[in-house]
């Protein structure tokens, strides 16, 4: 079953490469997305997989797998509508790459072996390059080049960190297994200096893929130039995989009883990411780049929550889902706005609510959700992290957290209200783009889920998140 989750998207990728008709091909995306989601649902809800397999489900990646599959499914419906609008671009490679990307994301999430996970994340990066280069102009070339160069350095560092971790096991005189469960079990015997070095390098490496400051510089360019759909998948999918990797190494540090330095480092980088995002979001003139900085901010919140631990970790896992879903709302809505106005600049875009009533309202609601306004999900998860910070005696961190959230709210609101209000320009009115079923229904679904998670957290979700947090902190 777990293997099928990887192989099915690959088969769809092959199919997408074979089909010549650009009318039939886009339909593959929702088909593949729904098959993947059905399989993922069976795997996530089903019994535990056999032990000592390369692929396996534990409480942590069970949550992540379900979330990613849902994210891809909703994006794939949108993709059907999007590709119908962009018939001038060569969509064959794009469609196939989307499926390969899904397959590798799934592999990275399911992998129970340090090396296999690394290979999968590497393949994710590689398969996302054609996605970024979809528009095939000099700007997207520049963005793809930066993304690949910085991403490759991140991946190279992740490999170096993996070597350090392996060496720490070797120095500790342990068995030669690099399965996560073995590493966690034998963590107390790891060589501590090498373990610390490994965590630092791994955190920087996978943190680069996650887009934490100061390794975030690829993010605004990549998210700014990529189609909105790709932005949603990167901001919700790829970063989630990298975060999962970091959580796994964090768990090893906890098991080795040497976690104080890791917490301190994550707390610093988390707050730094929020601060950098706040600086660049004030007076941001490009609404897609604004979303990229928002992603930097929320990656910061995720690692901050983990560094606080306890309820903070729970809040962080919940925020992972909330942020991913809300980013789906924002990126897809931004893509619709981009289609209708032909510009990403705030100067050219006014009156979205009048020009695109549905998209405009969704974008505005997405903005309120992502800045942590009740009753949406992110409010709840950010509040949980804040409460954990105060309960843990981190008053300074809590104060800074609140201040930065406030600055970001103010900074983002001036950009968002600037484009939502007013009268649309004549050019925008003449562009002929209209809200259609395929390009709005997925956004409505994303927003509905964000709202649901804010008002009422279903007990199964709550339980599985709780179990995942306990799994990481080794409380069982």
């Amino acid at each position, binding site marked *: 079953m777990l293997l099928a989750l990887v192989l099915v998207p690959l088969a769809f990728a092959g199919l997408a490469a074979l089909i010549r008709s650009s009318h039939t091909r886009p339909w593959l995306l929702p088909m593949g997305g729904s098959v993947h989601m059905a399989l993922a649902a069976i795997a996530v809800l089903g019994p535990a997989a056999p032990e000592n397999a390369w692929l396996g489900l534990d409480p942590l990646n069970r949550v992540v797998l379900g979330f990613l599959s849902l994210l891809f499914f909703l994006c794939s419906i949108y993709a059907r509508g999007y590709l119908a609008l962009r018939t001038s671009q060569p969509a064959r490679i794009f469609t196939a790459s989307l499926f390969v990307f899904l397959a590798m994301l799934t592999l990275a999430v399911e992998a129970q072996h340090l090396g296999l996970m690394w290979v999968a994340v590497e393949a994710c990066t590689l398969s996302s390059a054609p996605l970024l280069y979809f528009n095939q102009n000099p700007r997207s070339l520049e963005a793809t*080049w930066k993304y690949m160069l910085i991403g490759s350095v991140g991946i*190279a560092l992740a490999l170096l960190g993996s070597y350090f971790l392996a060496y720490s096991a*070797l120095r500790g005189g342990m068995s030669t297994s690099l399965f996560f469960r073995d590493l966690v079990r034998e963590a107390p015997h790891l060589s501590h200096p090498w373990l610390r070095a490994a965590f630092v390098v791994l955190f920087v490496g996978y943190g680069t893929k996650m887009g934490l400051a100061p390794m975030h510089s690829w993010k605004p360019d990549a998210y700014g130039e990529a189609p909105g759909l790709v932005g949603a998948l990167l901001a919700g999918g790829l970063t989630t995989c990298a975060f999962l990797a970091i959580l796994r190494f964090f768990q090893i540090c906890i098991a080795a009883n040497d976690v104080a330095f890791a917490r301190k480092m994550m707390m610093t980088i988390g707050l730094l990411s929020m601060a950098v995002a706040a600086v660049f979001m004030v007076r941001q003139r490009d609404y897609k780049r604004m979303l990229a900085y928002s992603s930097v901010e929320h990656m910061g919140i995720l690692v901050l929550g983990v560094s606080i631990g306890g309820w903070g970790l729970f809040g962080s896992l919940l925020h992972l889902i909330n942020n991913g879903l809300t980013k789906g709302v924002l990126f897809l809505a931004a893509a619709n706005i981009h289609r209708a106005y032909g510009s990403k600049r705030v100067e050219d875009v006014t009156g979205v609510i009048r020009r695109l009533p549905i998209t405009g309202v969704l974008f505005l609601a997405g903005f309120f959700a992502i800045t942590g306004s009740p009753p949406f999900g992110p409010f709840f998860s950010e509040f949980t992290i804040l409460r954990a910070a105060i309960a843990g005696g981190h008053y300074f961190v809590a104060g800074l957290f609140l201040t930065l959230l406030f600055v970001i709210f103010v900074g983002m609101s001036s950009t968002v209200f600037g484009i939502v209000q007013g009268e649309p320009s004549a050019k925008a009115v003449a562009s002929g783009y209209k809200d259609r079923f395929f390009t709005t229904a997925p956004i409505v679904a994303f927003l509905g889920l964000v709202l649901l998670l804010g008002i009422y957290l279903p007990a199964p979700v709550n339980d599985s998140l709780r179990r995942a947090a306990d799994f990481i902190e080794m409380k069982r």
Partner: protein
Amino acid sequence: MHGLVDPLLVSVLLFNLFILGTSRLQAVVNGSAIQGVLLGVLTLCVHQTLGFWAILFTLVAILIKAMLIPGMLLRALRDAAIRREVEPFIGFLPCLLLGALGTGAALVFAGTLPLAKEHAGSLLVPASLATVWTGFLILTTRRKAINQVVGYLLLENGIYIMGLTLVDAMPYMVEMGVLLDLFVGIFVMGIILNHISREFSSMDTARMSALKE
């Protein structure tokens, strides 16, 4: 065979410095290719027992590191008719000094790390750290896209050397280093196949400033 390890590593370090100090792009690419061959031979020397897979992976590593990637870079250079790195962000001499300092620091630092007894006194760990450092220096100080690829190759070579410490203990770890090569290979090839090699190889990354705040 084991006696060859340290002399080979010293040659790797010398090529680091050569690459740091030269402005001719062709020489830089050739230097990285020779380093690739050295690493291939090194892989053979490090193995305690030589099996089929060890030899196969060595050959694949040499093929990619010393022939495939440098070949593509040289072709891109020819297409674009550029020969030299102009005005790096930090001059060649200061860069060379930084590289030498980094190498010295790596030697000292590796001495303080708790090494397994079979690696105590070996140059594997310091050479790895020094090569990673050189790679970073080139990545950050050079403008030409080709030079940045070479910087990345050095970074990766350094990591590959670290992987060699695990050769007998951990299966699959060194092979992962080869995959990393393959990754760059595909990446560079993709760029060339997309008919943008002219733009790419003469690309002055300092001029890539359409996307900024």
